[in-house]
């Protein structure tokens, strides 16, 4: 039972990581640094809430969440692909925009600096089931959980088995070569970033609809963890998915461990971040980053 509870919690925590990190793989393999996953998620969470609130349907919220992530992604594409702005700087600026913008519109739409009203989400109120199996069953009713799990093989397939994936990999590795063959590198990159926006937007949607509301800054650094997973997994969808599961397991472990109060919470809190740094120094090392990552076309 404890095992099931553990696994159920890992599953709930890993879904947004899987979605956002898969998006991150797509974007980075095309050569665009995915620092803005956090911003995509936050925007997606907010627009999903708006959609669900005004339409009264979580499905509309889901579409709106995708749209929000894509909208911010297109801004990133505009700045980095069209205007060739530095990707790290543009990424940071867009994160700031996402934080400020969602606050601004939260205030504008709901006159609150804290949270939106409750909106429809997927699945009912759980019907009072407490057991681990019951929460697992509840997760199984959430389409976003399935989308999150399916995203990994789909992105892997897209990247390694389709013409678009071939072009994405070429655009991230040697864009001038792709361009000399008539591959519209700019368009490929824009599409890849938009895909990242859509997936990270879905990650935000999952968070918002799971909570049935938007709260200010509710992504709380999950986008950065997803980015860490992309690097930890060396830009390969399957390995990235494994990294996501690892991080989610660490977090679950932390939640369980903290109750026991053996170590000050500050130290437990650091685990995923320290793990990432250690991984970067040890496991990944001089990693196989796409050669043109961060470079203008």
């Amino acid at each position, binding site marked *: 039972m404890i095992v099931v509870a553990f696994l159920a919690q890992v599953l709930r925590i890993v879904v947004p990581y899987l979605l956002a990190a898969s998006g991150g793989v797509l974007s980075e393999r095309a050569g665009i640094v995915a620092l803005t996953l956090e911003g995509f998620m936050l925007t997606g969470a907010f627009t999903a809430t708006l959609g669900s609130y005004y339409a009264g349907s979580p499905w509309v919220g889901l579409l709106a969440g995708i749209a929000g992530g894509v909208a911010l992604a297109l801004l990133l594409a505009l700045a980095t692909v069209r205007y060739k702005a530095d990707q790290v700087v543009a990424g940071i600026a867009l994160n700031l925009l996402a934080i400020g913008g969602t606050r601004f519109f939260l205030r504008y739409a709901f006159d609150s600096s804290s949270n939106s009203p409750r909106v429809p989400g997927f699945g009912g109120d759980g019907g009072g089931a407490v057991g681990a199996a019951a929460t697992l069953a509840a997760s199984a009713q959430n389409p976003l959980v399935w989308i999150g799990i399916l995203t990994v093989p789909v992105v892997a397939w897209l990247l390694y088995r389709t013409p678009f994936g*071939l072009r994405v*990999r070429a655009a991230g*590795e040697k864009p001038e*070569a792709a361009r*000399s063959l008539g591959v*519209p590198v700019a368009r490929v990159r824009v599409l890849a970033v938009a895909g990242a926006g859509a997936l990270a937007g879905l990650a935000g949607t999952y968070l918002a609809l799971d909570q049935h509301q938007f709260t200010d800054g509710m992504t709380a650094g999950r986008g950065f963890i997803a980015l860490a997973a992309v690097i930890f997994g060396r830009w390969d969808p399957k390995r990235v998915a494994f990294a996501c599961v690892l991080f989610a397991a660490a977090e679950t472990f932390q939640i369980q461990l903290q109750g026991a109060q053996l170590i000050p919470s500050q130290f437990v809190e650091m685990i995923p971040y320290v793990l990432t740094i250690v991984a970067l120094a040890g496991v990944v090392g001089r990693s196989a980053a796409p*050669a043109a990552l961060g470079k203008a076309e």
Partner: protein
Amino acid sequence: MPVTQPPAIRLAGVRKTFGPVVANRDASLEVAAGEIHALVGENGAGKSTLMRVLAGMYGPDAGTVQVAPQGAGALRDVTGWTTAEAIAAGVGMVHQHFMLVPTLTVAENVVLGQELTKGLQLDRARAEAEVRALSQKTGLQVAADRPVSELSVGEAQRVEILKVLYRGARILILDEPTAVLSPPEVRELWTVLRGLAAQGGTVVLITHKLDEVVDISDTITVMRAGTTVERIRTADTTPQAIARAMVGRDVALALDVMGAGDELHAERVERRAASVEGGAVAEAAPARGRDSTLDARRSALEVTGLTVAGARRPNEVDGVSFSVAPGEILGIAGVEGNGQTELLEALAGLARPTAGRIALAGADVTALGVRARADAGLSHIPEDRHRRGLVLDWSIADNLVLGLQHRFSAGARLDGRRIDENARRLVREFDIRPADPSLPARALSGGNQQKIVIAREMTGRDYHVLLAAQPTRGVDVGAIEFIHDQLRRARAAGKAIVLVSADLAEILALADRVAVMYRGRFATVLPRREASAERLGPYMTGAAGAEPAA
């Protein structure tokens, strides 16, 4: 002059600028169908730019581009078309620098942009089959399923050509394709090109090697300062005449520089080396600068059992031993990718050898870094000036002190005045153009960029040993003449020079001894007198000489 065949390409009045730089002005080009056409000119003359306009990579600011679709029939105005449109119309370009994605396989590189699909998926098997078939048909042998990162430069160049042919190119543009090829590989390429032309295809070939121009082309267009200055039938001209048209004056060509004086010098060096072994000093070392600690009896550079790991192999350089005497040029020939790059990087201190010893003027420098070796009397003209030799965004003045920064500073403070003086002096002495030391190195032509490196490495410090890697690659004839002259002077001043070049003619023109490198080893070392293209060729391809131990 009359064009017998109907034209396949006609460019007229093309103008292309990059910010303040005018790369092409009123440039024109006419090539008949079925013709092999050479496009020549100094560095920065605008050849690559003009061809990129033709291939749809740049839109011209002015002028017209006309092409006969699929290389036959009536000309069609295609000014300002895209790469994709050019490819569709049968125009393909092989670029000066590799345009390959190293992480993808050969087949993936070939089909990129024109992917074969099965449903939504890539049809990898069919792509590989088609590439194999094409490879068979053209004789350009390369394994379709290997990642490009594992290929040798020669193989990579084959993939470049396959890429273009795969797209059914009837008009083939090749920008300096032979710069990295061995003589047999060049011959193989010529066969392919002649075959293409025989079937009505049209070829435009950019090259700096005038013997190649004479060898392969039917007609020649000469460019100078962005514009077309002459159009000649190859049969009616000589290398000398072409060179004159390019530069506007007479030039000494590398091909015929082996004058009497040089023969004499080579013999002198050999005699001296022999007498050194005999234990007696037969001849005083030539005059050198203040720091004349170097003794002619000792070799200036002594390398024993040097082994260097590379990205692809653990023994990219495999136990090489040699020595170079003061006043001697050791030429290292060989097809690129046989360890020359790694050898020189290890000598310069840029790569750590896994075994062996390097001694400069008798002192062991194996453990020293770049800076310490430079201070011990080592200068280095790197093979890749864009990556290593220059900071492209820096001014000419700053580039002229790269690696010498500690000589141009007092304590931690840089001495700006001396840096400026140094720049003004060297720009004048080495005729670096434009003569404005504050311009970024990026704005200069390849030849002038190379002059910066040469000026710095050959005057900046009191060196005993010069490592010169591909010193004239991609450099025009005028600059080649100048650089070769500089190298000869250095030899005369008693410097020991290691010259690595993929250009056999250059090696034969300059070296006193010639080593051929194959698979990380010296396949042979011959005195200049015994070396010739015919004799060295088999060693370069591994057909002769010691096979490396498995």
